[in-house]
């Protein structure tokens, strides 16, 4: 049994918490007593922020839609397909014909990469996320 320090994935408070893990399974959550924001408390969402992580409805593998139906695909094929399509569209209609939506749920590192991907790889400033909602 281990407890690993992390941050709540729900609202902008950024409460400190510990994720309890045993044999690669999450068994619980506890608040950080000294964290300057939550000081040993959590809200109901924080207390229950572990249940969805190992939910069986999680997306398990890449999916490609063929004739309107999703089919399981390998990472390799899926990444090839994405790269080929985005490259083609960029060449035919220009980089500004592609839009990228990053996420307020993802980490800083991932947001930075997404905007780097848009600007350096695709070549467009069409990158945004849902800060406004």
């Amino acid at each position, binding site marked *: *049994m281990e407890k690993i320090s992390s941050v709540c994935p729900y609202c902008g408070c950024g409460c*400190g918490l*510990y994720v309890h893990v045993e044999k690669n399974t999450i*068994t*619980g959550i506890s608040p950080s007593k*000294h*964290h300057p924001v939550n000081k040993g408390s959590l809200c109901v969402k924080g*207390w229950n922020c*572990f*249940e969805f992580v190992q939910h069986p409805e999680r997306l398990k593998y890449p999916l490609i839609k063929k004739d309107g139906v999703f089919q399981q695909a390998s990472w390799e094929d899926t990444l090839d397909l994405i790269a080929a399509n985005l490259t083609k569209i960029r060449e035919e209609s220009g980089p500004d014909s592609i839009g990228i939506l990053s996420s307020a749920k993802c980490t800083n590192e991932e947001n930075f990469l997404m905007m780097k991907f848009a600007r350096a790889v695709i070549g467009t400033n069409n990158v945004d996320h849902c800060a406004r909602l």
Partner: protein
Amino acid sequence: MKGHFVLNRAHLSYWLRQLRKDADLIGPLRSTDGDIIFSSIENIHDIELDCPASIPSPKEFIFPQKEEMFRFSDKGVSSKSNGERRVIFGVRSCDISAIALLDRFYGELYEDSFYMDRRRNTVFISIACNTPDPTCFCIGLGTGPFLKSGFDIQLTDLGNRYLVQAGSGEGLKIIRRFRHLFQKPEKTDFDDQYEAMLSSQSGFEKRITLETVRQKIITAKVEDSFWESVALRCFQCGGCVYECPLCTCFNVVDWKEDKDKGVRMRLWDTCMFKGFTKMAGNVLPAEKQIMRTKRWYFHKLLYYPEQFGKFGCVGCGRCTITCPGRIDMAAVANKLD
């Protein structure tokens, strides 16, 4: 005296290392962020011997927040045993008192096999509290800071040595296995323990007698307006219930994993939510927060004594730390007293 031993402080880590050979040793550590957390011990010297109350309570080791009950498929039901051997070191007296009551709740009238599986394979080594926290009030409840019985093994820190008391057969067994580490206690050891107890008792900031509160409630001297004022400040986080070493509520959830198989789990739940008592037809018998708040206190202060002869509170102070609305047991008792 029978069942009493003395352990040289320098030998503690050796003893724990031996215990770790055939059990998962769990104890209080200081995390990278400075919090006290109970987890598996890698390096014995990391253990915090003088630890303040942990969050959450050690009930998580015998009644985890989320636990798999069994798996089911079209071929039948299978369950795995949760009975991994564990030694939990550094638990406080209040929590030991709570576990003694939990054992009755989950084992007396009806035996909860998930709880008992874990319980039978767990040994608790508690440390009598020499320095109570500002939030502690076990002293008014007889659930601490030093225990006379109910523990597996209780250590009293006497500076260079520990007075070791075995309170159960399981406890005595793991002392006897390493008999060469323990000496017979002298009279001075008992004198020093008594001194330590007196100094600990004088260190309590909170003096709370729940009995006066109980009497007030029984004699109907507490009006609903009081509970209304408490309920107003409830944030509905469930923290008091999740943290409480004596709260036992859970919910059962089925996860469908595939067309033909799934898993049933139980998760901590709390009576502080209106959906907890939801009935068919979407009827909510405790729709108002005041009903739920009142019920929680009544359960701890009235129904527990009726059923078990003890309060459903051990004075650990965790609800005081965790409640964002500051309406914990100590605050309520203070206002009513």
